[in-house]
């Protein structure tokens, strides 16, 4: 955190000054470790075992927060009698469908009732529309003593019972004393009077079982009562200025703004079905239709009427996974003609650079927008395969447009930061030359396309024809007015054009317009709320008048949980939001994340619908039953509980199960994306992990050019322990070549005690640390770490696995003629070895472009 979010770490150090214990769990000893109280080195790719160990410790030592767990989580819910755990099936949950290559989750359900998940794959179970799904709260079966062997609590307890300190040592390489010290510190600092927080970044997410990493932390925090309370939570430290915003207003294939799902071809064939599949009968998602209709009104304006289902049929439909790597694989197979890349550099930042470039080779046209031509824009010019002479520029038919972009100081707009806070940045100067904002580019592109299609009478062109696209044009360069766009995102009423104060005002009758329901109210009263800059010193520590946080300017989500079931703060010290019995409403330092006048003792009757199904002790209002899900009956493709699986390419056999890897992971079995052996590959015996440095930014487009940053970290390097250096004859400051079967790179070597070997299962395991900022363009250059990585991904969110894979490292520089596996494996060899999967999983059916995924059913309709 000190490495990549130094200013965020300011508050960690402030906490430390006030006596907090800082625990840093990381394979490397980083700048965070340097000032932490405890540093726990952990083998890359084994965090679920570590966190699972914490779960086991908390439960077996009776350190969990009973009042919180019983009332605010689903611990008491009873689960289907058909449920079988990974403990019973050697690493698989019940319901594996060998033919489809995916889980059938019907055996994971709550007993007697099916609920819609607040996020994730809501379509998972949608064989038939079930409109009443989740409606009958009274049908839920509970055991509030938490003793029923099939209640969630007991299932969780059993599931993690084998995650003992000894197993943690065997899986993670963490000594039991150190583990117990962490566990004790965490438990001692949780409860009514105290809270602990988890912070993570892509070190947790970029795994083939990434989502479940976070889930495990969530279980720990639920058990300790650390969610929805000040000083608690699980903080995702996001790496880009608006990466949160680009998820909320998603430039993501599977979502529409505000986490509304993209219509799926085989299910969401019309608006009625779309709503049926996606709205929940209970909890906040019961408001789903209002958000959908307001969005369609925002986009298609007067053309959207109740008669034509608000132009729902204008929306394109997805028929599977269209995520980045899936698209690039299709691109490499010449299935994509055109590609827009804006402010991103996949030829450096994405997996398997050679395959990324192969994709670019096979495009008809490419548009790149950035400060200066990136490796993605110049792949045809001086990429490794061009320099090596394997490919000549005149063989590449891709037409490339490079557009210079405007900087954030040259345009108005909002970024959404990692805590969901929208902040407006004002234009300070005019963009120089032909530099323009993306807003300008996309608006003018849209205007041109509208013009091109103006006379078309084809159905397919109607969405474009009817698209609302009239924004005020400012100045000589005809910049669209960003504030007007923000106002549309925030929403207004159609009749009297009143800016909406919040999402509760949205209607499903076409009378409200809102581009993103969770952002509704950010232009409340016609005031640009994100532009508010009341000095922190002039307001409370919650600082509600600085910027604007979604939803409803709420700074802490699910904050009803900061009060006990009776609505009183858990303790004076951790007071945040509480029930005021006199006023009969929720109040506190923040905007209460609850129905403001719903008393703690409210219980829904049998006839309750929608939001009325939430009782006074249901703080997690987005969940169908208002409880935090310790166990996920629904929505995750790889199981209701987190389970330790090894990375695709590991150095160890899974110490817990016969199933080595996440059975549902996404794999691309392609000649240009070969994998190493599941474990113990003698040619690739070391663990590799990639990461960022403080001095650079992601793929380097915003840092590799800047002299002030380049001088601080001028060259690509790798980090190895003195032990590995000795083993491989590496010299500090010298050169090393790191290779996988997909590519090889050279780098300077830093030999450092900050890296250390792990002794596990009787073997000494070495890690190679690889920063990924560099490539061949810029003031500071070097080989790109992602030449090494492979296409392999978590099934739930299609995020790649770059934080743990296997490599070889040798002393010296690489051959002049640089090789990459875009055409096939770097080394021809027999690949046989241990299986990653148990027999039934092994039969996973293949799909398009080499994708083998445990979600074939959803991802590729055949």
């Amino acid at each position, binding site marked *: 955190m000190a490495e990549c979010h130094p200013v965020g770490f300011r508050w960690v150090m402030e906490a430390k000054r006030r006596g907090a214990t800082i625990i840093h769990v990381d394979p490397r000893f980083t700048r965070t470790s340097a000032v932490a109280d405890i540093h726990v080195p952990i083998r890359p790719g084994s965090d679920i075992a570590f966190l699972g160990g914490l779960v086991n410790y908390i439960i077996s030592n009776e350190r969990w927060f009973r009042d919180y767990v019983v009332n605010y989580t689903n611990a008491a819910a009873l689960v289907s009698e058909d449920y079988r755990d990974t403990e019973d099936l050697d690493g698989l949950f019940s319901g594996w469908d060998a033919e489809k290559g995916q889980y059938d989750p019907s055996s994971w359900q709550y007993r007697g009732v099916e609920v819609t998940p607040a996020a994730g794959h809501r379509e998972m179970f949608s064989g038939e529309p079930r409109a009443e799904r989740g409606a009958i709260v009274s049908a839920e079966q509970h055991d509030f003593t938490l003793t029923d062997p099939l209640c969630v609590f007991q299932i969780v307890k059993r599931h993690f019972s084998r995650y003992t300190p000894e197993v943690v040592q065997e899986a993670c390489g963490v000594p039991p004393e150190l583990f117990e010290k962490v566990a004790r510190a965490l438990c001692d600092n949780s409860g009514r009077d105290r809270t602990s927080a988890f912070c993570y970044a892509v070190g947790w997410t970029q795994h083939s079982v990434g989502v479940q990493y976070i889930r495990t932390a969530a279980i720990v925090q639920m058990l300790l009562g650390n969610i929805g309370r000040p000083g608690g939570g699980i903080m995702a430290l996001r790496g880009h200025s608006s990466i949160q915003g680009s998820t909320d*207003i998603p430039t993501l294939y599977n979502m529409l703004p505000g986490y509304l799902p993209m219509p799926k071809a085989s299910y969401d064939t019309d608006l009625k079905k779309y709503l049926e599949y996606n709205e929940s009968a209970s909890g906040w998602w019961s408001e789903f239709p209002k958000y959908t209709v307001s969005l369609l009104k925002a986009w298609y304006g007067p053309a959207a009427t109740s008669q034509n289902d608000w132009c729902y049929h204008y929306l394109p439909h997805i028929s599977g996974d269209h995520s980045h790597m899936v698209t690039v694989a299709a691109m490499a197979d010449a299935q994509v003609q055109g590609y827009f890349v804006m402010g991103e550099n996949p030829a450096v930042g994405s997996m398997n650079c050679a395959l990324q470039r192969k994709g670019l080779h096979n495009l008809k046209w490419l548009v790149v927008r950035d400060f200066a031509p990136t490796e993605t824009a110049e792949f*045809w010019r001086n990429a490794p395969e061009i320099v090596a002479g394997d490919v000549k520029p005149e063989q590449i038919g*891709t*037409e490339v*447009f490079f*557009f210079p972009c405007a900087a954030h100081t040259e345009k108005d707009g909002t*970024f959404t930061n990692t805590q969901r806070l929208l902040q407006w940045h004002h234009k300070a100067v005019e963009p120089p030359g032909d530099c323009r904002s993306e807003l300008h580019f996309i608006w003018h592109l849209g205007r041109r396309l509208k013009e091109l299609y103006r006379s078309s009478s084809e159905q397919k062109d109607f969405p474009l024809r009817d698209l609302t696209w009239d924004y005020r044009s400012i100045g000589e360069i005809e910049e669209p007015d960003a504030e007007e*766009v923000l106002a549309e995102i925030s929403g207004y009423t159609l009749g009297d054009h009143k800016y909406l104060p919040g999402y509760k005002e949205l209607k499903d009758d076409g009378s409200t317009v809102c581009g993103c329901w969770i952002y509704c109210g950010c232009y409340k009263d016609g005031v640009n709320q994100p532009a508010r800059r009341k000095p922190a010193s002039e307001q409370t520590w919650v600082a509600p008048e*600085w910027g604007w946080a979604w939803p409803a300017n709420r700074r802490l989500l699910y904050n009803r949980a900061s009060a006990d079931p009776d609505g009183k703060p858990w303790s004076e010290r951790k007071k945040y939001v509480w029930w005021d019995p006199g006023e009969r409403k929720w109040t506190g330092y923040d905007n209460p994340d609850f129905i403001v006048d719903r008393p703690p003792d409210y219980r829904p009757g049998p006839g309750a619908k929608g939001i009325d199904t939430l009782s006074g002790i249901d703080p997690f209002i987005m969940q169908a039953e208002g409880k935090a899900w310790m166990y996920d009956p629904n929505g995750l493709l790889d199981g209701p509980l987190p389970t330790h699986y090894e990375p695709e390419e590991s150095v160890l056999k899974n110490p817990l199960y016969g199933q080595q890897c996440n059975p549902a992971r996404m794999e691309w079995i392609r000649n240009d994306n070969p994998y190493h052996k599941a474990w113990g590959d003698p040619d690739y015996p070391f663990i590799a992990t990639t990461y960022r440095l403080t001095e650079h930014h992601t793929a380097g487009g915003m840092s590799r050019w800047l002299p002030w940053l380049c001088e601080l970290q001028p060259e690509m390097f790798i980090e190895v322990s003195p032990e590995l250096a000795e083993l491989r004859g590496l010299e500090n400051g010298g050169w090393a070549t790191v290779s996988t079967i997909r590519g090889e790179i050279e780098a300077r070597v830093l030999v450092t005690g900050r890296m250390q070997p792990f002794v596990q299962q009787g073997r000494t395991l070495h890690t190679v640390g690889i920063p990924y900022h560099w490539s061949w363009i810029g003031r500071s250059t070097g080989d790109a770490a992602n030449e090494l990585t492979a296409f392999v991904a978590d099934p739930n969110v299609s995020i790649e696995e770059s934080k743990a894979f296997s490599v070889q490292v040798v002393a010296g520089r690489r051959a002049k003629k640089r090789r990459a596996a875009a055409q096939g494996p770097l080394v021809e060899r027999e690949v046989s070895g241990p299986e990653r999967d148990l027999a039934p999983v092994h039969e996973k059916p293949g799909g398009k472009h080499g994708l083998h995924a445990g979600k074939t059913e959803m991802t590729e309709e055949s």
Partner: protein
Amino acid sequence: MAKNNWFLKWPALRQVASGDPAGLGESAMTERTRSLKPRTAEADKVVGSVCPYCGVGCGQKVYVKDGKILDIEGDYDSPISEGCLCPKGSATMQLVTGTHRTMNVLYRRPYGKKWEKIPLKQAMDMVADRVKQTRDETWEEQHEKGHPLRRTLGIAHLGGATLDNEENYLIKKLFTALGMVQVENQARI
């Protein structure tokens, strides 16, 4: 001090005049030193901004003079950063004013060996043409099973995490209207 007597322009005489035998302090100062000011005092406008690097969202202040950037530094008022910036944030001025920035549209024709500069408007027209052509060529109205698709898989998009919400919104809005579904960004990269 600094009596404006011309002969006191020589610091050695000032030393004598002000009885400062050591000559370490004010008598050795020049006019420039005496009238030194932070350059931000010369700014003709200061605008609030946000750091463009990571997701923490530190407040920045951009000082402008004569349409040029004078300084970019942290904003004390921000409850997030209280004036702090990390090294990347501190280098923002170099990022936005750097000579590395390209000011022209560059075009590489198919099988070409070099970049060519082309006018912005022409480039925009060309891109619009390409989009239309590809879209029309690769349009999928229906799945073979009869489900509606109404889309093109012929065009893809990547990028968004460094862009403004308003930009992402228009990207999603336009591209969805065009029937593009392969719209992605760094959020999963």
